[in-house]
């Protein structure tokens, strides 16, 4: 290596870190690559349009006994709430009621009169319920409970089989009731 070339190389080596410090920070790249099969057990979300709904199905009749066994202790018979919840105290929410939305009081909100989409009901039961045993229910049981709650709320016919095809098609009565508070912050 000629002296000139060695000096030039030395200059580049010395300038490198200084330039890096003045521009962007080096990124360490310490993540480990994963494949879809690696993450399958965690990949559970269901979007509003039903994307992510798994195979399986259930009906209200199948859901009724599961509701009695796993849900009614906190949400009341038929999801109509406990005394605590009906008294307005902090409590597991009322799932089904004949209350109409009234003024600005969201305590009258139920799934049937409020939720804009049906698939998030499957999502929430599967990820978070029962409160003391989340993700203990099979997908069939979650479909059956979804059907039961929607049927009790008179959103669907009690005989409808709920699955990945039928649930996204359930038209929730309050589908068009919502508006984003800050439209300028929505993805575009």
């Amino acid at each position: 290596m000629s002296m000139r070339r060695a000096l030039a190389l030395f200059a580049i080596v010395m300038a490198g870190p200084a330039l890096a410090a003045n521009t962007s920070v080096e990124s360490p790249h310490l993540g480990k690559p994963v494949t879809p099969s690696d993450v399958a057990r965690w990949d559970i979300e269901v979007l509003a349009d039903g994307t992510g709904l798994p195979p399986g199905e259930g009906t209200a009749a199948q859901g009724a006994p599961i509701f009695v066994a796993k849900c009614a202790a906190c949400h009341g018979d038929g999801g109509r709430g406990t005394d605590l919840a009906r008294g307005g105290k902090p409590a597991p929410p009322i799932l089904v009621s004949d209350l109409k939305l009234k003024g600005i009081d969201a305590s009258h909100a139920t799934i049937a009169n409020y939720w804009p989409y049906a698939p998030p009901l499957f999502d929430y039961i599967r990820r978070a319920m029962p409160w003391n045993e989340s993700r203990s229910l099979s997908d069939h049981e979650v479909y059956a409970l979804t059907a039961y709650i929607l049927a009790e709320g008179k959103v669907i016919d009690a005989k409808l089989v709920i699955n990945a095809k039928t649930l996204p098609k359930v038209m929730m009565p309050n589908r068009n009731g919502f508006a984003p508070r800050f439209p300028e912050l929505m993805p575009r």
Partner: protein
Amino acid sequence: MKRRTDLPSQHESEQQVAGNGLLHRRALLGKGAAVAGVLGTGLGPNATGAAAEQLVEPPWGREIGEDTPPYQVPSKFTKNIARTLSNPKFEPRSSIARTPHHLLEGTTTPNGLHFTINHTGIPDIDPKAHRLLIHGLVKHPQVFTLDALLRYPLTSAPAFVECGGNSVPLFSPTPIQADLQALHGLSSCAEWTGVKLSILLEECGVDPKDHSKWMIAEGADAPHLMRSIPIAKAWDDAMIALYQNGEPLMPGNGFPMRLLLPGWEGNLNIKFLRRLKLVTGPAMSFWESQVYTEPMPKGKIYNLTFLNEVKSFITSPSPGQALKQRGIYEISGIAYSGRGKIAKVLVSADGGKSWAEAALQAPIQTKAFTRFRLPWRWNGGPAILQSRAWDAHGAFQPTRSEFVAARGQLDSEPPVTAFRNHHCNVITSWAVSSTGKVTHVYA
């Protein structure tokens, strides 16, 4: 000095800048005047004309003190400075702990007093076994350990975190008689340190010009709490927070890592963060379809309310405290805005008829608590204290009538712990009676 508890002197009346005794924000600076704290020991010097107390040597000056603990805890004399718990018997529902703003000062919430809401208990996470997965519409899906994240460039920033349900007792048509902790205790401010989310997303092959997608953020706690977040926030100031006021996150605040979205609705700042998935649309999860929603008077319901709007409240004096003597007090409070910095805070002592500009404690930091202070001479008569904040983007707090016109109010008084609507930033009013009692009022 001897005139401090008498009627205002000529000098001091010149400094009165708004009705009912509000003094100029610099009135007391450098003048050697003492300020009576609301929680002070009572009477100041010469207040009653009694002789000075005979000073003695107390026992702690004559004995060996206590052993030094490895992790300090506050004095036993300050045990009252604690969070209030909504679910002390841990029944099967959410557990909410509120910050006692009326017993704190400055702008940083101590870690043990930061508000928390946990819906299915606090998970006991082994940080070595915790993983953060970033996947979905990314070129290179990856999983990160805590040790890996600690080798990334870390940044620190103060940020308030506020529950969308903070202050909602003020939707009541009548002022609920509760203290500051019950009304505004679901907001806290800490210095957070962590990895900028933009660095991780870029490593996963996401184009930083992409503003079209949503992120599903999910926790490792039992309900795997999930929210939908516009990706633009990642390119702005989102962080994977690992430290809170210099120490690892408190378990109730998301140990070992949480999503921090400065200025945005608390529930979006997913704790125990274990998964970020890029998708094309929102999930409209339970939290977006029912909980964090705002029914409006004319029928529409707002949701996806990302921002916490500008807010302020007076922490001292506040309900539960009592003014024991007339004289000079310092009105002190907290202001913050999810849009950026606080620009100004006005204070009134006459229920909004006249206003004076409060001093803002430097440094004023974006999306963080800003402490405001203003000296006030209480003349022993009734007063209504209010604060009203403006942020650097020109947004300001609505008066009671403006707020009710826009957002409505409930038909009847709810339990103070109920969440009947969300996102309330109306002006708060404290009445001081002629006996010095402080209560919550509407004005």
